[in-house]
């Protein structure tokens, strides 16, 4: 059996977070994998340690597993749009591209200086805007463009869609005292404002474009200020971008251009990287694919791994008997051995991390120790958990319960985790069948038919924004399919939304989490996703983020030409 080295550099970076204190951020694992043990460690150390100087030129070839519905970030929510289109646009603020693994490190993009601290009791944010930033058509960006963009996002005109409206409920009005200043006046202090503003979908559009061409023009046209300029899009095939010579972050981008190649089949994306037809894929591969690539290409592959801001949730339908009984729901959660699941499933699927409702590692998320002690199903003694589950089922008269687990017809990670859950429930005497549906009817079942018993659902977000993200578990949140109501949960969340105090926020998040996962077990968490990005080792400068939507401007990526020639030729 071939043995491969796996030398990991675990960098626990320190960063100043949005709360103004030093925080240890989630670990980013930069993994350099080499083909053979003897060479592996040396190559990895060598490659990891070199203080490489970025090189200019070259073209990056990215494979993307989804097609582009439209170019408009304000209405789309798919990485199929973000990966090819984000490099054409700028944001007002963004996650730090040099430290994207931190869920709390935000920096200015179109604004200057640091991300502003709020004034007026947390209700006013004043941004200074860069001078001389040009759109692709030559227009000069001013504060009016920022205002027009966010007005469209938070209060679009009648008949115009904005998929981000709910994120900006705290905004009262936007003012532009001059061409270089934008002031956001909030209705109340909010911990979700900065992460919401930094969302990668908030492309800054030109006010003139919106007024002249209409609010739907950006669905089929591109005019941005990003590091690359739009060159070509062949539907279903690829998108090409070329370097923006007027880009305002001096010295960037390093690449002459990039091509995003649409390749829906994972095997094609994997083989394209192996066969020299592509350099990188940003969404993530399962562990087996990583291992295959490393086995085939050895030191020609670099791997970065990270926790992922996506989570699989078990959603019982409270309107279906016996799932209206909290004892039954709690038993379902208690029967699941998350820790062994993490160990074994992470070898075959894109899941790994055990966590509560908040993104693991975020300052507002509960620690593993807290979860272990306070939340049903997180205790380490699985035998005790399952004994309790059996007792609860007996008490509820559901010892031999049979039901159907509704699931999405996508292998990674849905069907893998679904199959694992069925096995877990078998340990407490439950007889479960899996009902798999393609995406469209899957959502129709959740949102319209509502005729499922228990469903596997998921929550996948861009910027880590726990206060907004946990609205998934809120009955009135709009994306909760458990069919229940709970005044207490609503009240906790309402309070959470309106407090700017971090300590108070953490307390409320834990109270909310206890209510969801323990008191009611209205829904429960299986495992958080785990992101694995193997790519050609001549690609440099890109750092993994906890979301496949983040750090996709490509401006800091550069290609080591000598290494490219060695690996691909030409």
């Amino acid at each position: 059996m071939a043995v491969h080295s796996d030398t990991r550099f675990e960098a626990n970076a320190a960063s100043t977070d949005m709360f103004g204190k030093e925080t240890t951020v989630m670990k980013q694992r930069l993994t350099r994998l080499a083909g053979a043990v003897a060479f592996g460690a040396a190559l990895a150390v060598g490659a990891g340690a070199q203080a490489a100087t970025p090189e200019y030129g070259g073209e990056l070839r990215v494979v993307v597993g989804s097609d582009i519905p439209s170019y408009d970030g304000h209405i789309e929510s798919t990485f199929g749009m973000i990966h090819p289109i984000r490099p054409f646009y700028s944001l007002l603020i963004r996650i730090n591209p040099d430290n994207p693994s931190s869920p709390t490190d935000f920096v200015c993009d179109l604004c200057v200086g640091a991300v502003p601290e709020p004034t007026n009791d947390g209700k006013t944010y004043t941004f200074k805007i860069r001078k001389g930033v040009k759109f692709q058509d030559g227009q000069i960006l001013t504060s009016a463009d920022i205002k027009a963009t966010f007005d469209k996002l938070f209060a679009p005109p009648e008949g115009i869609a904005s998929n981000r409206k709910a994120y900006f409920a705290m905004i009262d009005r936007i003012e532009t005292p001059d061409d270089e200043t934008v002031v956001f006046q909030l209705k109340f202090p909010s911990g979700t404002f900065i992460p919401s503003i930094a969302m990668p979908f908030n492309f800054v559009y030109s006010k003139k474009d919106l007024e002249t061409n209409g609010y739907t023009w950006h669905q089929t046209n591109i005019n941005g200020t990003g590091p690359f300029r739009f060159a070509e899009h062949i539907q279903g095939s690829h998108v090409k971008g070329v370097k923006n010579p007027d880009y305002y972050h001096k010295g960037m981008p390093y690449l002459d251009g990039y091509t995003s190649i649409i390749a829906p089949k994972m095997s094609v994306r994997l083989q394209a990287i192996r066969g020299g037809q592509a350099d990188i894929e940003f969404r993530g591969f399962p562990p087996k694919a990583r291992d295959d690539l490393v086995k085939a290409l050895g030191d020609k592959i670099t791997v970065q791994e990270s926790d992922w801001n996506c989570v699989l949730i078990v959603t019982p339908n409270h309107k279906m008997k016996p799932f209206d009984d909290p004892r039954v729901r709690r038993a379902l959660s208690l029967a699941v051995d998350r820790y062994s699941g993490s160990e074994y499933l992470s070898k075959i699927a894109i899941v790994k991390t055990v966590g509560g409702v908040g993104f693991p590692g975020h300052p507002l998320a509960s620690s593993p120790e807290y979860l272990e002690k306070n939340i049903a199903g997180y205790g380490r003694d699985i035998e005790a958990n399952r004994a309790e589950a059996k007792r609860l089922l007996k008490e509820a008269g559901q010892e031999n319960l049979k039901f159907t687990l509704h699931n999405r017809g996508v292998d990674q990670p849905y069907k893998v985790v679904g199959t694992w859950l069925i096995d877990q429930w078998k340990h407490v005497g439950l007889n479960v069948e899996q009902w798999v549906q393609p995406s469209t009817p899957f959502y129709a079942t959740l949102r319209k038919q509502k005729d499922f018993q228990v469903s596997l659902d998921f929550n996948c977000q861009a910027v880590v924004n726990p206060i907004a993200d946990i609205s998934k578990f809120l009955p009135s949140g709009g994306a909760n399919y458990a069919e229940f109501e709970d005044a207490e949960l609503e009240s906790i969340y309402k309070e959470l939304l309106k407090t700017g105090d971090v300590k108070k926020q953490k307390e409320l998040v834990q109270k909310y989490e206890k209510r969801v996962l323990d008191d009611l077990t209205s829904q429960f968490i299986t495992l958080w996703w785990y992101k694995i990005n193997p790519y050609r080792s001549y690609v440099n400068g890109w750092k993994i983020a906890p979301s496949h939507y983040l750090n996709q401007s490509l401006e800091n990526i550069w290609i080591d030409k000598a290494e490219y020639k060695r690996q691909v030729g030409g």
Partner: protein
Amino acid sequence: MYSYIVKRLLMLLPTLIGAAILIFILLRLVPGDVCDLKFGGEGSYADPEQIRQCQDRLGISNPFYIQFWDYMVGFFTLDLGVSMWTNQPVGYEIAIRFELSLQVAIMATLTSVVIALPLGVISAAKQNTMVDYVVRAFSIAGIAMPSFWLGILIILGLLITTQAWFGRSWMPPIIYTPIWVDPVANLSQLIWPALATGYRYSAVATRMTRSAMLEVLREDYVRTARAKGLMEKVIVNKHALKNAMLPVVTIIGIEFAFLMGGLVVTEQVFNLNGLGKLFVAAVSQSDYTLTQALVMLVVTIFVLMNFLVDMLYAWLDPRIRYS
């Protein structure tokens, strides 16, 4: 003859209308729609108002009879509409992929014919010999092997052999280059799917050629030709082959029509931006307008290919007359 052609062309209309009605109903039997998927498909919050606006804009919220009426009006005025997923005209979506699918279909059909005819004839001429057994095994293997699986094997084979021989793994390009822009890049991408599918379809055609040839070679006029002392080569090539071609042409015609829209999995395996891949995307995205147009396109191609095959019959067998 001309009245026959006109009649056949007129028969196209009820076939197309029947297919249009069927696909309209079938698509709407599947729960959910493109707006649900577009705005909430990644597990994110989807504003119900936004979904409603989208459904109104696309006409999905209209009663079925209004949707059907709009569809029929578009059908008769040749207005294919706009893709519900991309907002691009359906005609444009199809046009940019048609060229690739047509080229693969032609290349695969040529591959199929080049393999099938000689092997079928040899197999018949050498019936029950070792040559016949080898050809039959080769063709049965082709029928048994799905072309997408063969495609996967071809790609893996290329990756492994190029790594072993040249030290660098290589696979066919995954972006289409038109043949007039760069013939080498074009052929290096399309030759592999053409081989994979061509082999699959050659297997059926080989067996059909063999059985048709065996039947013809037992005809009285062939025995007469042999009795007259004609060379076996002349008998087979000049007198038997043409008469054995009727069922073979039918098979090849149907295969060609199928290749134009039916390479659903093979196009995915080779990442070809053709009609098959578009079909998968349109169906999985519940893009009604695009799916309906693609079904109509495939039905039209099938009907026209059958018509062309019928026309070829008269050329191959002068005894056939149309009235």
